[in-house]
C-alpha cells in the first residue's frame, strides 16, 4: 500500500473546505505539523515524499532539497527504514557534543499488527455476514489501516524536520549521510546483547537520575524547569493515555452506528408494512452519521491524542537534557573537589586542573544551550497546543453542525411522510 505524505511543513491547513463526509480527506491535510513554527528554510528542506508498506516493514522515501554546499546535488531522495531513523536518533543521543540540546524524540515503531489482525479476522468471518456488511467493514478497516499508515509517515517526517530545523543538528554528518547515501546504511536493529546493554544503561541512568536530581540547583531558572518538567511530563502521560481511551470509545460507538444502520436496512427491506421506507431512511441516516462520528474520533485522535503523545516524548527529551546538565554539574563539582585534594597533596595538580577546566567548560556550554533549548521548547509547545486546540474546536464544530443538519433533514423527511 502506498501513500503520499504530501503536506509541507508549516503550510496552512485549509480545514474548512471539505464538504462531503469523506473519511480520508481530513487525513490528507490534518496529519501535519504537530510542531509548528519550524523555520522552513531554503537551506535545507526535508520531507517524506512516499512510503511503501511491505509485509512487516515500511519503506520511507526521504526527499531532500538543499542549497548547502555539503551535498552533491540540490535535490535527491533515498529510501530508509524505521531502524535507520532510530540509528540516527541514537547517534545524536550518544554524541557528547549534543549533550546541551533537546534531541528530537525518535518516531515510534510502525505498528500495523492490530489492524492487520482485524483485517484477517474479517476475512475469516466473511461467510457469516451479508455482502453489504462485509464490504462496509472491509472499507472501514482499510481506512483504519491507511490512517495508521499516514500517521507513522507523519511521525517520521516530523523527526527529520525537527533535525533539519535545528541550527546545530542539521549540520551533523550522520544526518547528511542519512539523507544522501543512497545505499543501505546497514544498520541492523539491536541484537539481544545490545538490547540488554541498553536495558542496564537505562537502569543506571534512572538510578543516577535520582541521585543527580537530589542536587539542588543554584540557578533558579533550571530549578524551576526541573520541577515543572517532572510534573508536566507525568501529567501529559496521564492525559495522553486518557485521551487515547476516549478516542477509542468514540470509535467503538461509531462502529455500533454502522451495525445499527445495517440492521435497520435489513428491517427496511423485509418488513411487510409501510414502515419500510421509514426504516430505510433511518438506516441511511445512521450510515451517514456514522461517517461523521468516525471523523470526530479520528480528528480527536490527531489533534488531541497525537499532540499529547508527541509532547510526552518531547518532555522526556527535555528531561533527558536536564539530566545531562545535572550530570555534568555533578562531574564539575567532583572535579573541583578532586582539584582541591590534588592541591592539598600537591600531586597531579596539572591533571586535576585540566580535568576541572574541561568539566567547567562542558557544564557552562550545556547550561547555555540548555537554557535556550528549554525556552524554545516552551515556545514550540505553546504554539503547537494553540494550533491544535483551535483546529480541534473548529473540527468539532464542523462535524457537530454537519451531524445536526443530517439529523434535521432526516427528521423533516420522516415527519413529512407520517
Amino acid at each position, binding site marked *: 500500500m502506498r501513500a503520499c505524505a504530501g503536506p509541507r511543513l508549516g503550510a496552512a491547513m485549509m480545514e474548512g473546505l471539505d464538504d462531503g463526509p469523506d473519511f480520508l480527506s481530513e487525513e490528507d491535510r490534518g496529519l501535519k505539523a504537530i510542531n509548528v513554527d519550524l523555520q522552513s528554510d531554503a537551506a535545507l528542506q526535508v520531507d517524506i515524499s512516499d512510503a511503501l508498506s511491505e509485509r512487516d516493514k515500511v519503506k520511507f522515501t526521504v526527499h531532500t532539497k538543499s542549497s548547502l554546499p555539503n551535498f552533491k546535488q540540490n535535490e535527491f531522495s533515498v529510501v530508509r527504514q524505521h531502524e535507520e531513523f532510530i540509528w540516527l536518533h541514537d547517534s545524536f543521543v550518544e554524541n557528547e557534543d549534543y549533550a546541551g540540546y533537546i534531541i528530537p524524540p525518535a518516531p515510534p515503531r510502525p505498528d500495523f499488527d492490530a489492524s492487520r489482525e482485524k483485517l484477517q479476522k474479517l476475512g475469516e468471518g466473511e461467510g457469516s455476514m451479508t455482502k453489504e456488511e462485509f464490504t462496509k467493514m472491509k472499507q472501514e478497516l482499510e481506512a483504519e489501516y491507511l490512517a495508521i499508515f499516514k500517521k507513522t509517515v507523519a511521525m517520521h517526517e516530523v523527526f527529520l524536520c525537527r533535525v533539519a530545523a535545528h541550527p546545530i543538528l542539521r549540520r551533523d554528518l550522520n544526518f547528511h549521510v542519512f539523507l544522501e547515501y543512497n545505499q543501505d546504511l546497514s544498520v541492523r536493529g539491536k541484537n539481544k546483547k545490545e538490547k540488554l546493554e541498553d536495558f542496564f544503561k537505562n537502569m543506571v541512568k534512572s538510578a543516577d537520575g535520582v541521585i543527580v536530581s537530589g542536587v539542588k540547583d543554584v540557578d533558579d531558572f533550571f530549578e*524551576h524547569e526541573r520541577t*515543572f518538567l517532572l*510534573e*508536566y511530563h507525568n*501529567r*501529559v502521560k*496521564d*492525559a495522553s493515555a*486518557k*485521551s487515547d*481511551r*476516549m478516542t*477509542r*470509545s*468514540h470509535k*467503538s*460507538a461509531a462502529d*455500533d*452506528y454502522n*451495525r*445499527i444502520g445495517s*440492521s*435497520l436496512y*435489513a*428491517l427496511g427491506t*423485509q*418488513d*411487510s*408494512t*409501510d*414502515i419500510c421506507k*421509514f426504516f430505510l431512511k*433511518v438506516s441511511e*441516516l445512521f450510515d451517514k*452519521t456514522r461517517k461523521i462520528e468516525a471523523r470526530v474520533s479520528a480528528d480527536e485522535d490527531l489533534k488531541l491524542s497525537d499532540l499529547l503523545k508527541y509532547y510526552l516524548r518531547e518532555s522526556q527529551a527535555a528531561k533527558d537534557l536536564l539530566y545531562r546538565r545535572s550530570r555534568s554539574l555533578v562531574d564539575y563539582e567532583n572535579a573541583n573537589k578532586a582539584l582541591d585534594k590534588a592541591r592539598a597533596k600537591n600531586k597531579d595538580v596539572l591533571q586535576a586542573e585540566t580535568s576541572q577546566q574541561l568539566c567547567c567548560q562542558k557544564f557552562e556550554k550545556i547550561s547555555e544551550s540548555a537554557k535556550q533549548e528549554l525556552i524554545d521548547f*516552551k515556545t514550540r*509547545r*505553546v504554539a503547537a*497546543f*494553540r494550533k491544535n*486546540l*483551535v483546529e*480541534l*474546536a*473548529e473540527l*468539532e*464544530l464542523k462535524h*457537530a*453542525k454537519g*451531524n*445536526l443538519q443530517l*439529523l*434535521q433533514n*432526516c*427528521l423533516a423527511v*420522516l*415527519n413529512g411522510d*407520517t
Partner: protein
Amino acid sequence: MAAEREPPPLGDGKPTDFEDLEDGEDLFTSTVSTLESSPSSPEPASLPAEDISANSNGPKPTEVVLDDDREDLFAEATEEVSLDSPEREPILSSEPSPAVTPVTPTTLIAPRIESKSMSAPVIFDRSREEIEEEANGDIFDIEIGVSDPEKVGDGMNAYMAYRVTTKTSLSMFSKSEFSVKRRFSDFLGLHSKLASKYLHVGYIVPPAPEKSIGMTKVKVGKEDSSSTEFVEKRRAALERYLQRTVKHPTLLQDPDLRQFLESSELPRAVNTQALSGAGILRMVNKAADAVNKMTIKMNESDAWFEEKQQQFENLDQQLRKLHVSVEALVCHRKELSANTAAFAKSAAMLGNSEDHTALSRALSQLAEVEEKIDQLHQEQAFADFYMFSELLSDYIRLIAAVKGVFDHRMKCWQKWEDAQITLLKKREAEAKMMVANKPDKIQQAKNEIREWEAKVQQGERDFEQISKTIRKEVGRFEKERVKDFKTVIIKYLESLVQTQQQLIKYWEAFLPEAKAIA
C-alpha cells in the same frame, strides 16, 4: 402513546432543562413530575382531533341488544367472566367474542388526544361493523403514569411500591383521576389473569416486564446508583406495560384491569413468584407446550396464517439483531462518558501544571468542556437505552406473545381435530352396537354421538373464532407497531439533535479561549 413513555426527555427541546440536569440532579424524578403535569395538555391544535370535533358533537351511544345465544358461548369459552358490571358497553361486533365486551368509540365523551400521539380520527356515525373491521377507531382517553417508587418495609420483606396514576374521562371509571399503590408482583398478577382469560382465544396480551430471579430483593434493599437505575428501568417498563394494556380495546374492558387501576387494596398475587410452586409449574407447562407444538401437524388451509407466522419469525430475528447492536451502543456510550470524564480531570491537572498562563487557562477550559460533554454522553446513553433499546426489547417480547397466540390457534385446531376423531370412533362404536343388537348400549352410543357432534361443532366454532380474532389482533398489532416505532424513533432522533446542538454550543464557547492563547 409514546408520550407517556419518556423517562429522560432530554429537555424536550427546552435548553433550561439541560442546565438543571447538569447539576447532577436526578434525571428521573424531574422527568416523572413533568410527565404527571404536562402530557395531558389538551392542545391537539396540530392534530386531526380538530376534524373529529367538527364532524360530530360528541359520541352518539348506540344501543345494542345482547344476543342470548352468545351468553352461552361466553360461559363456555372463558373461565372468568363478570357480566354484572353496570358500565358494560354494548357488543361491538355481531360475532361472538369471549370474555367482556369491547368498548365502542362511540362512548367516548371528549376525544382528548395526548400531545404526542398520532392516533387516527374516529368517525362516529359509521356503523359498528365498519368501525370494527377497520380496527381504526383507537382513541382512548386514558393516560397511565407509573411513578414515585418507594421502598416499603424493611429487611427481607422490603419491596418497592409504585404509584399508578390514571387520568381518564371514560365513563366506566368512577373518577376522572385517581391513583393507587402497587408493587411489582401486582403487575405480574394482573398480567397472569389477563393472559389466562384472553391469550387462548387469540388476543395478544402485552407481556409484563421481566423478572430478575433472585436479584430483586437485593437490588431493592440497596440505595446505590445501580439499584436506582434498576428501579427506574423497572418503573419505565411497568408504565409502558400498562399503557400498552389499556390501549387494547378488549383488555380495557376487563374488570381485573379496572380493579388493578382503581381499588386501593389488591389481594396479593403470590403465584407470580418465579421460584414458587406455581412458578415452577408454569415453567414445566411451558416446556410441555414446546414439545406439543412440535408434534402438532396442522393442515393450514389459510395461507394468511402461514405467511404471517413467517413474517413474525423474520421480524423477531431482525429485531433481536438490532437490539444487540443498540445494546452495544449503550455500553460504548457509557464507556465514552466515563473516559471523557477521566480525560477532563486529566486535562485539568495538565492545565494546572502548565506554566504558560494563557495555555494553562485554555487547558482548564478544555477540561470543563469535556466535563460537560461527558454529561451529554450520559444523557444520550439514557436516551439510547430508554427509547431505542427498550422499544426493541418490548417488541421482542410482544412478538413472543403473538407467536403464543398462533400456537393457541394450533392447539384449538388440534382440539377440534381430536373431537372429530372421537366422533368418528363413537359412530363406529354405534355401528357395531347396531350389528350386535344391544338396545341399551345403542342408546348410550347415540347419546355419546350427540355429545361429540356438539363438541365438534363447538371446536369448529372456536377455531373459526380464534382465527378471526387473531386476524383482527394482528392487524391492530401491526398498526400499533408501525405507530410505535415511528414515534419512538423520531423522538430518539430528536434526542440526537439535542446532543449535537449542545455540542455546538460548548465548542463555540471554547473556540475563542483556544484562540486567545498567545
